[in-house]
């Protein structure tokens, strides 16, 4: 038997999980890589630091770098890691439910819905307040994004529903709805002032620039609440891989379980998008990478989340250093690197 089959059982009362050692090892290793990448990322800024200075600045309150690290660099790095984790977890859930390795929250209308709402907000407020609305920037944009994400998902889910949910129909309806949102977004971009447009463009590309604790907290909270809940739902998720008839006969209330899990996935993706804008392909690629590394039957949830954090942080590192001193939005890097991966997946699936 391959090593991937070494497993222990974890029981809490009537609940039990199977922990596969390979998955656990990869999760732990991934966390170490994530910490290293975050440290490397925190070196960059107006004042260059060494990794040692970064570590000292994080843990030593008397260090000269303490303020910069705690107020500027750590929140940004944490936002990246948490947002990546939330997106990846969301992707892992959706891929399990759609029984399709190519599905992601982008397809579910979350990110495109959020983009439209934010662009609408930026364009509308720009002309009213002359683009200096601090309140809109800190509170309004995340709220709009969250609202847009939920509306987008509701529209896609509602349109794809037809006496039950079919994974393929969901994906295709998602593509159609995304096209509408995208075109409305394009139109909104022509309506606004060019400066507002530029700000909106940065946001809709997915950026970690200038992210503070106010962006860390919502994502951290969402993860803290939703990770345990999704782990509770793993049993249903494992079962949902089979056909609806089989699932029903296994005693899972198919549509209810699916709806709850999708709701969790949508919330995770929407909160993440609210914090950092739509960072493309992390949700799609991370679960697939995790699945291959852990050699499991379907995307392992926690492992996917860690990989998501690693990917996003690595992409941010590239975005900040590739054209230094110019900084690209991280979402552009993930899209440029992620799309070929998706094509590769499609290619493999056909062979």
């Amino acid at each position, binding site marked *: 038997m391959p090593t991937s089959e070494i497993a222990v059982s974890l029981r809490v009362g009537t609940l039990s999980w199977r922990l596969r050692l390979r998955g656990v090892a990869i999760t732990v290793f991934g966390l170490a890589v994530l910490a290293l990448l975050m440290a490397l990322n925190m070196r960059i800024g107006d004042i260059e630091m060494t990794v040692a200075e970064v570590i000292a600045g994080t843990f030593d309150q008397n260090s000269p770098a303490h303020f910069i690290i705690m107020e500027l660099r750590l929140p940004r790095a944490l936002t990246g890691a948490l947002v990546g984790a939330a997106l990846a977890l969301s992707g892992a859930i959706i891929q399990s439910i759609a029984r399709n390795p190519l599905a992601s929250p982008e397809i579910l209308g979350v990110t495109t819905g959020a983009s439209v709402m934010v662009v609408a907000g930026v364009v509308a407020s720009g002309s009213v307040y002359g683009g200096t609305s601090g309140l809109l920037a800190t509170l309004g944009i995340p709220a709009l994004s969250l609202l847009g994400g939920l509306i987008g998902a509701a529209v896609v889910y509602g349109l794809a529903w037809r006496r039950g949910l079919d994974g393929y129909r969901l994906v295709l309806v998602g593509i*159609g709805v995304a096209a509408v949102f995208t075109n409305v977004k394009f139109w909104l971009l022509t309506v606004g002032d060019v400066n507002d447009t530029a700000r909106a463009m940065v946001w809709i590309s997915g950026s970690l620039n200038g992210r503070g604790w106010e962006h860390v907290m919502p994502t951290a909270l969402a993860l803290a609440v939703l990770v345990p809940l999704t782990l509770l739902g793993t049993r249903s998720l494992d079962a949902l891989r089979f056909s609806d008839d089989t699932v029903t006969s296994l005693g899972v209330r198919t549509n209810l379980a699916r709806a709850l899990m999708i709701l969790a996935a949508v919330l995770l993706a929407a909160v993440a998008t609210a914090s950092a804008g739509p960072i493309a392909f992390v949700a799609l690629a991370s679960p697939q990478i995790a699945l291959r590394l852990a050699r499991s039957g379907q995307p392992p949830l926690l492992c996917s989340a860690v990989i998501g954090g690693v990917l996003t942080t690595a992409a941010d590192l590239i975005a900040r250093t590739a054209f230094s001193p110019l900084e690209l939005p991280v979402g552009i890097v993930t899209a440029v690197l992620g799309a070929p991966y998706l094509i590769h997946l499609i290619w493999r699936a*056909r062979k």
Partner: protein
Amino acid sequence: MSATAAAPRLQGIRHRRFTVLLTLLAAVAVAVVLSITIGSKSVPLADAWAALTTPTGSENDIIIRSLRVPRTVLGVLAGVALGVAGALMQGHTRNPLADPGLLGVTQGAAFAMVASIILLGASSLLVYIWFGLAGALVASVAVFALGMVGGRGGPTPVTLALAGTAVSAMLYALTSAIVLLDEQAMDVFRFWQAGSIAARGADVVRQVLPFILVGLVLAILNAPGLNALSLGEDVARSLGQNIAMTRTIGVAAVTLLSGAAVAACGSLSFVGLIVPHLARPLSGTDHRWLLPYSGLIGAALLLLADVIGRVVAPPGELEVGVVLALIGAPFFVALVRRRKPVRL
């Protein structure tokens, strides 16, 4: 069925096909009239006619001759081009959801043009249309390659649509990267990407016309080969078809048609997707009829969408690309909901 019984039936079909063709031509003519007379300033039909035949230099004459006519002509050209390109794409990939917009050709052209404007300083449409065509070519070859992979039958509609989404997303990210570094480019790009046939002028029409004409000729030449190919590659080969040649002509035609339309008008999604579905019930599967029907329906659809965009949001206009998405996406969703995605 004996040959003597088949002959009148065949004649009936041919008769019906010409009737449909004439009806569609009439529909395009109506759309042209609407497009010339309706707008932020309505011009009575008689005045419009006078402006075209005996111009006096009045305000109406200037509106008609310098704005409405070039806009309408461009609308017809782009509509024909995208309709035919969509039908060709769906035929070649045997995929009912194929569309130049959905499959990344539009973003390919966009990326190449923005790159040429920013990085190489291309300033006139005449220069960057070549880059747009090159970008469209690369993207359509990539999508076709993905469309054909796996040999027999190719990928399912869903994988092809996803491949297109992936290609589009990557190209769009690259385009945004360039545009974000240059605010001036963004100001041009944001109007281009919304997709419009307004304010393009007669010189744009003249510049894209040759590309579209060559594309249409290639499309017509491609029709018989495509008919054979729709029976499957093996059958087509045994019928004496040169498959590589047919595919090459198809890719060339799709590239010229969608590349030129997109270079001139920006992103116009869903024309290529919807139109063949409207044309197929009228034409059957014969591409010699499907292609012209698709072209005419495309022209009528694009012009009507443009007219709708002019009147729904006064005093401003809604770009035709946005109207098309608002019309097209519900159609797409209905298509997906109606049945399991089928292969052509």
